[in-house]
């Protein structure tokens, strides 16, 4: 039995939290209708007459029903189900007795209310367990008092409290009132892993029924009495800004209420990294319906002008940084030339082990390959949108954001309101992938509402969404390997860079496994705004590195899995250098698992296989991808994935997420690209931006998790990066062509 001090995050356990959680939530009808568990199912069993707040995470009804708050943004990673499961397990309540509610942003109660870095579960693992365990303990104490028996003799299971010796028992509902008045214990016992009854079992999406029946769940679905719809016109090109506009025609159009420009941030506003936006001044069109404002926007006559060089100061988790936006209208062809030029020069030295120069001089064979990837748009299926209702002394915001906590200060500052007067509530979100980390659309909605003195729902068109920036950066990397006469890998050199950031992780594998190692990088400034995109940097460098290792194995005459296992063995037994940031044993573990589960090494006629493995977000993923050629076309038949992300809370949901990572990775590697001509993104909708479709997805995906007792690590991002390497390696086996430059579809030769 592990004991945990409740001091960690104790704010959430202070009594009388009704104001902070229940009161706020129940005040908003939309979120009420958002209750994920089926209302009709609950209605069959009577709702309680009274709820008792035990702590900020849960309240218990007098009939034993439990409401668990889900604190984090739900972007499709299924936290609205899996986070409450953790609380419920420690509470010892049956899952069918649980109602899940989305918590609003509340920095007093919760920490890391962010969908980012694959950290939702890992960051809250302890506090969620503590919330449940604390409540369980307080219920036991209440029963002990009522029955005048020692608390240690009380058992709690499945929502029932019992005292064996006296034969007394009671439901949680009977003791909830008394428990809610007790002091929060200084420390509580957490369950043993072997005692988990909900964690580790598959539970269906709590919003499932609402999703399949089309109930309002998403930000774009928000409806409010008197609400106006707003849409924005932003510059058509990066490197341009608003000069002037004429809205006379637009204002005369049916349903249009107003057209005005808004400026997001003052020049001296101290921006955080998530306050980034491409276009600080935009034109807002307000009207009664979405179609009307979209039509009116087309009639705007706007003059844009070129920007000049600028430097934006930003803070990123306390670190100051400067982001430079040079003037000019950029082109993809120039980007490519610049990246090749920079990559040909000496880069910034990031890590050096041994004597790589000497090793390359003495090499029997040298392999050198270059890789690149374009900018990508996140393309969440639900375009950016947000509801805001700003009055003189209050701002209410409701919608899809991955970073409510980081956006709140910017909104308060922009509106001139104290931060406690800004309330942010979360809807379910139609995808995130990193795009909704950058909440300029929240500030825009709030600024528009303030100026219009009306509740406003801001909705981006798809074209606005895709041409607004915050793209995955464009990357380039060159790998060099030295082999000795026995085909041992004696040196590895990676030089990588990008626009505007480098994708290099110098301390990740194969660093630590090679005696002579050199890592360099470089960057190129741009006025095209970029941001985090599912597994930032890893989403390129993993595929490049794992494709390169495949060529090294081929030249060395080794099996690609064995080559990696040999290197990992070296890294485990006798690591080279300092600061290697991975666990070589766990890394090898997923390769061993995927080898077994995919029946690697058994040759099947017509089946072409590629392997890849990567570590990011503290998790390890290995994948084997199988291709057959049908009618001269490569078909992905199967992907076998092995994952070590510690304890898996909700296995089927985790499997779903891993399957999504595979499909997303294949799609982006094969087809994804945003290209630029004179600063204008050449793709602004799905007719030009190709996303993977049904017929292009693998015919089957099998996912296996390493079973261990390690606290959970990331899962939303890790299955995404390595698949691009497995795809490239399998395509080579199938077609004889190596793929170096994404999107692969653009460099594909005719097979056969």
């Amino acid at each position, binding site marked *: 039995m592990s004991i945990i001090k409740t001091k960690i995050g104790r704010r959430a356990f202070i009594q009388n939290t009704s104001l902070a959680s229940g009161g706020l939530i129940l005040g908003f009808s939309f979120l009420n209708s958002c209750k994920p568990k089926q209302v009709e199912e609950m209605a069959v069993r009577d709702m309680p007459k009274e709820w008792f707040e035990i702590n900020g995470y849960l309240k218990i009804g007098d009939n034993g029903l439990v409401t668990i708050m889900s604190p984090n943004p739900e972007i499709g990673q299924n936290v609205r189900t899996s986070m409450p499961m953790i609380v419920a397990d420690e509470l010892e309540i049956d899952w069918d007795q649980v109602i899940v509610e989305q918590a609003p942003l509340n920095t007093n109660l919760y920490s890391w209310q962010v969908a980012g870095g694959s950290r939702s579960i890992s960051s809250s693992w302890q506090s969620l367990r503590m919330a449940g365990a604390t409540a369980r303990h307080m219920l036991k104490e209440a029963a002990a008092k009522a029955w005048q028996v020692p608390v240690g003799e009380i058992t709690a299971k499945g929502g029932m409290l019992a005292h064996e010796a006296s034969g007394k028992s009671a439901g949680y509902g009977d003791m909830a009132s008394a428990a809610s008045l007790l002091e929060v214990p200084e420390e509580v016992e957490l369950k043993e892993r072997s005692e988990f009854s909900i964690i580790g079992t598959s539970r269906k999406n709590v919003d499932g029924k609402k999703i399949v029946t089309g109930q309002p769940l998403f930000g774009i679905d928000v409806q409010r009495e008197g609400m106006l719809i707003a849409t924005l016109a932003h510059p058509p090109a990066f490197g341009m800004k608003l000069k002037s506009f004429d809205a006379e025609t637009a204002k005369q159009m049916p349903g249009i209420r107003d057209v005005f420009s808004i400026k997001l941030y003052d020049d001296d506003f101290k921006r955080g990294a998530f306050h980034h936006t491409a276009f600080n001044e935009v034109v807002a069109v307000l009207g009664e319906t979405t179609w009307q404002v979209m039509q009116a926007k087309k009639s705007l006559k706007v003059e844009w002008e070129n920007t000049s060089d600028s430097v934006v100061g930003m803070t990123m988790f306390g670190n100051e940084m400067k982001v430079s936006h040079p003037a000019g209208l950029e082109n993809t062809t120039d980007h490519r030339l610049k990246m090749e030029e920079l990559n040909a020069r000496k880069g910034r030295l990031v890590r050096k082990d041994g004597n790589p120069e000497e090793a390359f001089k003495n090499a029997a064979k040298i392999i050198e390959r270059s890789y690149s990837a374009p900018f990508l748009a996140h393309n969440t299926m639900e375009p950016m949108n947000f509801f805001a209702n700003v009055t003189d002394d209050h701002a209410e915001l409701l919608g899809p954001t991955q970073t409510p906590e980081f956006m709140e200060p910017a909104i308060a500052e922009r509106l001139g309101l104290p931060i406690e007067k800004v309330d942010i509530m979360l809807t379910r979100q139609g995808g995130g992938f990193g795009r909704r980390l950058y909440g300029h659309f929240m500030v825009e909605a709030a600024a528009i509402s303030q100026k219009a003195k009306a509740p406003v729902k801001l909705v981006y068109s798809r074209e606005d969404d895709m041409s607004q920036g915050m793209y995955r950066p464009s990357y380039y990397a060159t790998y060099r390997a030295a082999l000795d006469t026995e085909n041992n890998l004696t040196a590895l050199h990676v030089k990588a860079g990008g626009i505007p950031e480098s994708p290099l992780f110098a301390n990740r594998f194969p660093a630590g496994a090679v005696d002579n190692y050199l890592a360099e990088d470089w960057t190129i400034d741009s006025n095209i705004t970029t941001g985090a995109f599912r597994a930032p940097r890893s989403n390129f460098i993993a595929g490049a590195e794992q494709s390169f290792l495949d060529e090294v194995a081929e030249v060395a005459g080794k099996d690609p899995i064995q080559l990696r296992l040999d290197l990992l063995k070296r890294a485990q037994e006798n690591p080279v250098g300092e600061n290697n940031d991975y666990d070589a044993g766990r890394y090898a573990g997923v390769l061993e698992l995927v080898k077994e589960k995919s029946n690697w090494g058994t040759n099947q006629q017509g089946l072409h296989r590629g392997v890849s493995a990567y570590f990011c977000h503290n998790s390890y993923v290995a994948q084997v991808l199988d291709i057959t050629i049908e009618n001269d076309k490569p078909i992905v038949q199967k992907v076998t994935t092995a994952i070590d992300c510690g304890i898996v809370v909700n296995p089927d949901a985790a499997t779903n997420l891993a399957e999504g990572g595979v499909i997303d990775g294949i799609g982006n590697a094969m087809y994804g690209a945003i290209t630029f001509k004179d600063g204008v993104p050449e793709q602004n909708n799905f007719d030009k931006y190709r996303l993977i*479709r049904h017929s292009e997805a693998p015919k089957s995906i099998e996912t296996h998790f390493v079973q261990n007792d390690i606290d959970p690590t990331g899962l939303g991002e890790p299955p995404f990066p390595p698949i691009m390497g497995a795809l490239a390696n399998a395509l080579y086996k199938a077609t004889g062509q190596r793929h170096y430059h994404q999107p692969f579809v653009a460099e594909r030769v005719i097979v056969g």
Partner: protein
Amino acid sequence: MAAFALNINGKTQEVNVDPNTPMLWVLRDHFKLVGTKYGCGIAQCGACTIHLGDSAVRSCQLPVSAVAEQKITTIEGLSENGDHPVQKAWLEVDVPQCGYCQAGQIMTAAALLKRNPSPSDTEIETAMNGNICRCGTYTRIKKAVKMAADSELS
């Protein structure tokens, strides 16, 4: 502006809008039927799929003036209690990740099964190819469509 009487989910409802207004926005903004989703506005993603009669159509490209007497079914009206075989299969397979595209996927799948109760894998892929799922639930969607097909046959 013009008045239209529309048969939506078995009920006749009236609306006064610009005749060019796509059904997508009539449903969402005027009738508050927000299950039909906006994804691209150019019939490329399928998020706005509804049934016009028995056919799956993209409501973002269907002007209200073109509907006339034809019956419209949206995700909200696909079944009385959310128990259409496709909806049940979707829940059983636990298809959704973010969930945004799923109403459109379900409407396309339901129309497919109505005209072809036991589609092959290739027929499923072809019918569903116009519906994008950005989260990548394609393998689960196919599994759910097959499950629904089997349940309809039995």
